């Protein structure tokens, strides 16, 4: 494990952890998706409002968990608003690759999300950072397959 704690708990991450974005539950939602991380008990609830052009109109993330999973969920809420479902799925896959240390095709400026890279040095914590993104992918997939909200549940153990 890394000697330098600040590599993982970067200022941006601590900022998101202390004041998570997307805290307000949505009144109208098209997607709800729940994720959990059985190894540490983290739980995450996500609500998404999708507009007619299939763009994310609004996001709510409620994560009960560690600083990394909360910060990752908060960054997700901030980042995906206004993005199309296609873009959202693409970036989620790329974030997954980035966290797992695989080659990622990200060329654009992903802002705060870049700070999640520090988690790579702490292998046991990668799942914490992944939770929000896996919950998102699951929710969007189910939405596109026509499954109704409130029935989506994903576990970080599903991604072996």
């Amino acid at each position: 494990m890394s000697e330098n704690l600040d590599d993982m708990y970067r200022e941006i991450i601590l900022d998101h952890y202390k004041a998570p974005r997307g805290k307000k539950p949505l009144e109208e939602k098209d997607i709800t998706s729940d994720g959990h991380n059985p190894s540490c008990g983290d739980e995450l609830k996500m609500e998404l409002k999708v507009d007619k052009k299939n763009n994310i109109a609004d996001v709510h993330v409620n994560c009960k968990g560690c600083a990394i999973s909360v910060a990752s969920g908060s960054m997700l809420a901030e980042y995906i608003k206004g993005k199309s479902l296609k873009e959202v799925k693409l970036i989620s896959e790329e974030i997954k690759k980035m966290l797992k240390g695989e080659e990622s095709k990200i060329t654009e400026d992903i802002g705060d999300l870049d700070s999640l890279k520090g988690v790579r040095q702490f292998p046991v914590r990668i799942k914490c950072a992944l939770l929000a993104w896996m919950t998102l992918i699951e929710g969007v997939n189910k939405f596109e397959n026509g499954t109704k909200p409130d029935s989506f549940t994903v576990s970080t153990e599903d991604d072996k």
Partner: protein
Amino acid sequence: MSTETTKKDFLFDVQKIKSDFPILQRKINGHRLVYLDSGASTQKPIEVIDAHTDYFKKINSNIHRGLHTLAEDATNAYEKTRSHIAKFIGGTKTSEIIFTAGTTESINLVAYTWGETNIAEGDEIVITDMEHHANLVPWVMLAKRKNAIIKRIPITDEGRLDLSDIQNIITEKTKLVSLTHMSNVLGTVNPIKEIVQIAHQKGAVVLADGAQSVPHMPVDVVDLDVDFYAFSAHKMLGPTGVGVLYGKEDILDKMPPFNMGGEMISEVSFERITWAELPHKFEAGTPNIAGVVTFDTALTYLENIGMENIHAYETKLTAYAIKKLIQIDGLKIQGPYNTINRGGAVSFTDKNLHPHDISTFLDSKGIAIRAGHHCAQTLMKRMRTIATARASLYIYNDEADIDALHDELFAMRRYFGHE
């Protein structure tokens, strides 16, 4: 901690003991290793490490079958550990000591042999609300196979067994009571003897999970009168992959074997197979010989300090740890504050911080603790938490280790902005 305090208050020289454990010299992230995760697995003294090497250098061989010198030496060493354990836990017969891979396998052995033949539809199996998954999942699955019923002894908010309704929980329908001797999360030491008496009055047998108790206090299974008792070598200075199941001879005799293969048979033909005598009936195949032989040295190391001394020392250190930790704002001890009938597993939660963040932070300062659900998800639910952080103590810990934990927990709250 001043050395003077150590010598005056405690019954052995902790600094000398620390020096027996080579791993404690290791620097972790630039800091002295403060190992507070002995509830998960203890470190090993140099004597044990050497014994393991010596086994392979001098007597390595298979046991119970060869007729050459090495086979005889290895067999003798293996059986010597068995006799040692029989003495260590109160003077049982050697035929009542079965080697397994660990506590989990010991309990599964009982579930799949005794359980399969003695539990029928409608029978009741009593466990408690503080069990490790190793003493919960095998019984829940057995109950499912047999349509039997699982009943639980509840716990109080303090984290002790609530025995107020025990006469209605353990009934004439109860076939088995299986409970931990000491909780790996709460540190609570349960009144096994009292529960055994109640269970026996109702005709039930009792299994006690001793994984957290045998390493830390004198245990006499004959006096407790338990029917089965399970524990692991690696939580008491020994190697991983070695466990013990104690069972009363008359019960073991009636049980079918667990694994089938070599060593556990007497005579084999295609028409008829007879089982070996106890304890070999339950030891099919080549066991972890090196581990078992090495375990003998670990037992001797503990005996030289004295289990009474170890227990007294850890009780004092646990009281010190609780006293220090409750000084930190936002921290809550999950388990009894009173050290009577309480061991040195000290779980805590922080009202703001997740145990994983606590553990990562402490690790960066060289302090090893456990964070998570501790294989006790049902207990976490009862405690209304998703996970805890746990510092668990052993003979090589001292007040300086507790002080380091305390100071870094303070620093941690500042770091995460929860001053």
